[in-house]
């Protein structure tokens, strides 16, 4: 039974790490601010969620598992709202917007 739980942890944490890598590559490679927002709000949250799911079986008390979920929820809430605010501030300040690969 613990081998199965360990396997879940390994798989999910690795997947989480992959999405964090994807997020970072996105942050560095994307052409303009608005597209980079995807890296921040999408890839990272998925990475964090997978890591949280991967770590949940390791928790000895169900309450700490709940706390892990709260951390993930907070992460998502922060990313969503901040992404919206930054996007609106970028638009308002009229920064150059990438119009596709001319």
């Amino acid at each position, binding site marked *: 039974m613990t081998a199965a739980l360990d396997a879940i942890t390994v798989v999910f944490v690795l997947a989480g790490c992959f999405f964090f890598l994807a997020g970072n590559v996105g942050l560095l490679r994307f052409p303009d601010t608005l597209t980079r927002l995807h890296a921040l709000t999408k890839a990272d949250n998925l990475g964090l969620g997978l890591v949280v799911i991967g770590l949940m079986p390791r928790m000895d008390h169900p309450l700490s598992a709940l706390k892990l979920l*709260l951390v993930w929820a*907070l992460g998502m*809430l922060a990313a969503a*709202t901040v992404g*919206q*605010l930054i996007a*609106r501030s970028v638009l308002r*300040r*009229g*920064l*150059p917007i990438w119009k596709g690969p001319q």
Partner: protein
Amino acid sequence: MTAFPLLDPALCFVILTTAVLAVAIRTVFAAVVSFIVFGLLMAIAWVRLGAVDVALTEAAIGAGLTGVLLLSTVARIAKHRADRGDDVPILEGPEPDPAPTDPLPGLATQSLAIVLSAAVAAALVAAVALLPVPAPGLVAEVGSRLSETGVESPVTAVLLAYRGYDTLLEIVVLLFALLGVWSLTADARWGGQPGLRHLARPDGVMAYLGRLLPPIGLLVGVYLFWIGGYRPGGAFQAGTVLAAVWLLAVMAGLVPIPKVSGIRLRLALVIGPAVFLAIGLAGYPLHGAFLGYPPAIAKVLIILIEAGLTISIATILGLLVAGAPEERPS
């Protein structure tokens, strides 16, 4: 103990890179951002060193509040430059940076700085190397007398029982920092609301965040306050989280900060140190010494002190970040 030997050198290297960035990076805003990242990595380093209490404090105060304080300072400096009609349009255009890069001083000062900082760093590395291997510490003493303090978490026992006098002076230091900040208001604005008046779109995302996060923050704050007795946590970390969410509600324009001359605000500031002082003086008859807690009721006294401290710390830290009153009192 080092299950994965590569993690520590990597963490140290990234910490030092962020430190160099915070000093050497071109613009002031980027320096503040690097400093926020530095604070976060320090919190990870503290967890790696097993000091979870310190990690909590560093994450809440070092990375959190100090970062926000510096961010709002940079923004307000930009506002002052804009009000003065300086050339740099505030935060418009592709590379809007409020403060242009400031020139480095002459060669003499730079070389002096390099020599001095290298000397200090080298002396310290030598001192670290010279520290004796069987390191003396007070772990045993703290553990042996823990039962008399009525608290299980050793750090809370040290903070509030063994070295309670330090913590009393520390909350007084915090209060005097606030008095110092308030003393910098213009005379005409004395008595007004601290910080800038904030307005937000009623149905916008800011107001939504201002309504949603504070309850969660309150929950986390009370949780941190309560577990202070058993596990890492306590008044300082709880106070910081409460201050942060209170400021969030203020930024969302939902909650007005009470006036500086308001009596309720002043009592909230003073209650923490006052309760601590009263219990300290009660220590004379109860236990024969200042801040002496009789073991039987030590736990109750410590919880009382922590409750007072949490209220005062949350109020003081919130007002410290909000800054000196800038609004003309209505």
